[in-house]
């Protein structure tokens, strides 16, 4: 009797173990259709439209409720973080006064240098109020829109619009053109991404192209100091000082090609960079002779390039500790 009961129990236990094993068996033990089909060799499967990346639809982020939430975020956390971490000095608004004082200021394209993720927060804070309310930011689709949660945060907090850095397509430019035509101003980083080594990069033609296409003027902007605060590769931010310097609004000449206009924008930002590190007059004199120090740094590589960067930062907002000397009149 006892032997029978033991056998029954063993059978039950065996059945339970079998059931658990079956339930716990990895899916890989099951083939198609429980799993995605394998792809035959030599066949290319077209990429599935995921709704992320450059295809992410940000329209919802421009609706009133989202715009209100963004206003709260911009005036709260972004403002606070910008103030505490970057302590910005914003100069050059006077150069935009002719446009900003109009009853209905036209949309403009802001083309700043790019060294840090803080640049966008800083720009949102620094841009004159008349353009701040209707402002979109061109953001790398492959970085800010590759995950759903990143896409939602970027679109909501920065009003970011995805642009494809890897594929030259019309989708991004059409979307931005439509937004500018709708009265939105745009922040677009002509360098295409953050500086990899602290020096600037060559300008891509996006801002010039959009300006030529829409007629919106380009405002060159030089941001100094964010690279030292949270540059590419830094694990955590280090609070410091920054300068955001706005230039005069620029429009393409009648017969000016996008390439030439882009070169002119780059030259204007380079002059602003010199102005930020030296002064207006020196920058203008050097601009006239083409001697403004290039944003892309010296030609040489290696430690000398890093050394030159450190020297340059000493002159800029990161190293600014100069006190103004009072000039007493010389009475002889």
């Amino acid at each position: 009797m006892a032997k029978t009961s033991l056998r029954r129990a063993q059978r039950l236990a065996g059945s339970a173990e079998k059931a658990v094993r079956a339930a716990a068996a990895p899916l890989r033990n099951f083939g198609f259709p429980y799993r995605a089909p394998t792809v035959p060799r030599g066949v290319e499967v077209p990429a599935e439209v995921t709704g992320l990346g450059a295809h992410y639809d940000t329209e919802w982020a421009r609706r009133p409720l989202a715009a209100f939430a963004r206003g709260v975020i911009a005036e709260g956390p972004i403002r606070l973080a910008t103030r505490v971490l970057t302590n910005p000095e914003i100069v050059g608004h006077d150069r935009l006064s002719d446009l900003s004082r109009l009853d209905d200021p036209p949309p403009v394209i802001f083309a700043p240098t790019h060294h840090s993720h803080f640049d966008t927060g800083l720009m949102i804070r620094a841009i004159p109020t008349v353009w701040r309310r209707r402002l979109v930011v061109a953001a790398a689709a492959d970085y800010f829109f590759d995950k759903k949660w990143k896409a939602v945060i970027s679109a909501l907090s920065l009003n970011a619009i995805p642009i494809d850095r890897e594929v030259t397509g019309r989708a991004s430019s059409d979307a931005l053109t439509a937004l500018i035509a709708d009265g939105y101003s745009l922040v677009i980083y002509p360098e295409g991404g953050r500086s990899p080594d602290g020096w600037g990069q060559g300008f891509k033609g996006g801002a010039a192209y959009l300006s030529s296409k829409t007629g919106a003027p380009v405002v060159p902007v030089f941001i100094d100091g964010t690279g030292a605060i949270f540059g590419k590769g830094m694990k955590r931010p280090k609070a410091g000082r920054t300068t955001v310097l706005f230039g005069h609004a620029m429009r393409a000449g009648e017969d000016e090609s996008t390439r030439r206009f882009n070169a002119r924008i780059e030259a204007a930002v380079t002059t602003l960079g010199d102005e930020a590190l030296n002064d207006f007059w020196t920058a203008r004199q050097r601009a006239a002779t083409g001697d403004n120090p290039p944003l892309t740094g010296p030609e040489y590589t290696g430690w000398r390039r890093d050394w030159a960067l450190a020297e340059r930062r000493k002159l800029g907002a990161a190293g600014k500790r100069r006190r103004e000397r009072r000039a007493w009149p010389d009475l002889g």
Partner: protein
Amino acid sequence: MPRPGFVLDVDRSTPPMLFWRGENFSLEKLPADRSRVIYGPEPLAGIDDVDGAIREALLNPLDMDPLPALLTPGMKLTICFDDASLSLPKMRRPDTRQRIIEAVLELAAAAGVDDVHLIAALGLHRRMHDYELRHVLGDRIFDAFHPRGLLYQHDAEDHDNLTVIGETDEGEVVEISKRVAESDLVVYANVNQVAMDGGWKSITTGVASYRCLSYHHNPATLQNTRSLMDRHHSALHHSLWRMGEVLREHGPKIFTVETTLNTDTFPSPFDFLAKREWEWNAKDRATFLATQKSLDRIPLKMRRKIMHSIESPYRMTGVHAGFTPTVHERTLDNVYAQHLVDVEGQTDILTMGIPYICPYNPEGIMNPILVMCMGLGYLFNMYRGKPLVREGGVIIMTHPTYRDFHSVHHPSYIDFFEEVLADTTDPAVMSEKWERKYAEDEWYRHLYRTGNAYHGVHPFYAWYWGAHGQQHAGRVIIVGGDAPTVRRLGFTPASTMNDALEIASDVVGRSASITHLHVPSVLVADVK
């Protein structure tokens, strides 16, 4: 489309009129059927592309080569600009001087000009504070030139750095800054707020010496100036133009840039000041009452601070560059287009509210001498043709006229009030008896050269400015002023406007005509 200025005949349904009273204002009911009020034209439209217009003016000047053709490497370039006495109130940044000078510097940099000096053309005015220079020139110019000592302020007492250019046919010696005289090119950036400003006056007063100024800043000249706003009938301007001729023949090449402003003077919430009283809506009336009552209840110092913090949203209406006299004639056309109002006939009594500011107290105190200067010097002279008030008529001003002076800006004014005015109010007598003592006083000279004080002789000039009005009027009454102070000025105090009109009737009779100069916007009466 801005409405032109006009003359309103006061009737029983006309509301009380706005009068300035220093740092506050009041509403005064003027007698019906014998009073009229002159309103200036509404602000003209400003230029939208200011930088573009300035550049256009520099590239296509009047009677001179384009500026780039005048700029060569190795040359000496001096840029002079008007001081803080213009504009009033100070204009919102960016100031037009900054825009002009930045445009000139862009061209100078492109031409490879290295030797550039910037000089604030103060004349005998006080040195500007650094923050005022920053306001006028912008941070970019200030930061580039001031630390290197290339941006500085004219010193009319620095005899080592003054030089005589020549002498006019009437024996007037033209003595100006040596740097200006020795420059290959002088660019002068003007703000022409009223018709008196600009032309040869800018250089021949702004960078001149006391000796040079004394030829035209004297009672005889100013009593024959009919008026300051009409340069063709102004003895002062005739003298300045004679000096200008000497400069043209023997001095440096001068490239003048003149800009004109509209009369959009007061930003919100003070914009009701520029409106016609019967057009005040509920918001304007509430703002007026709230502002007036609040200003009444706060300390005077705070009141001044509030009023001097006003920055005007002026818009630029024109810019011309090139040969000084040609440019100035174009400028005058622009100024008159904004300011002129046709007025039929003179009046027995002229009323005017005196504001908190005049050209000689930016950021400072409107002391009693400046009240006289503003009323009889500036506002009385706001005419072309004939004075608004007939000879022997009465001028009624409203101002608290406190015995209060800015000890840093106006040190010699204090002694002038206590010493000179106690002796005489006659410009000719004080010029003869007292002027030299004040002009050559070492302590005043030191304060002028190293601090922020007006030159020792400046209160005399402020007094002479009103010499024509003083000579012309049969009586001057100040409503609401401190009585002993008003009497020291040689005027009659009155508590209310009705009292003032009663007092005036002794001179001009009981049915005298009254004209009120509606001051918040600048205007020039073209009296036929």
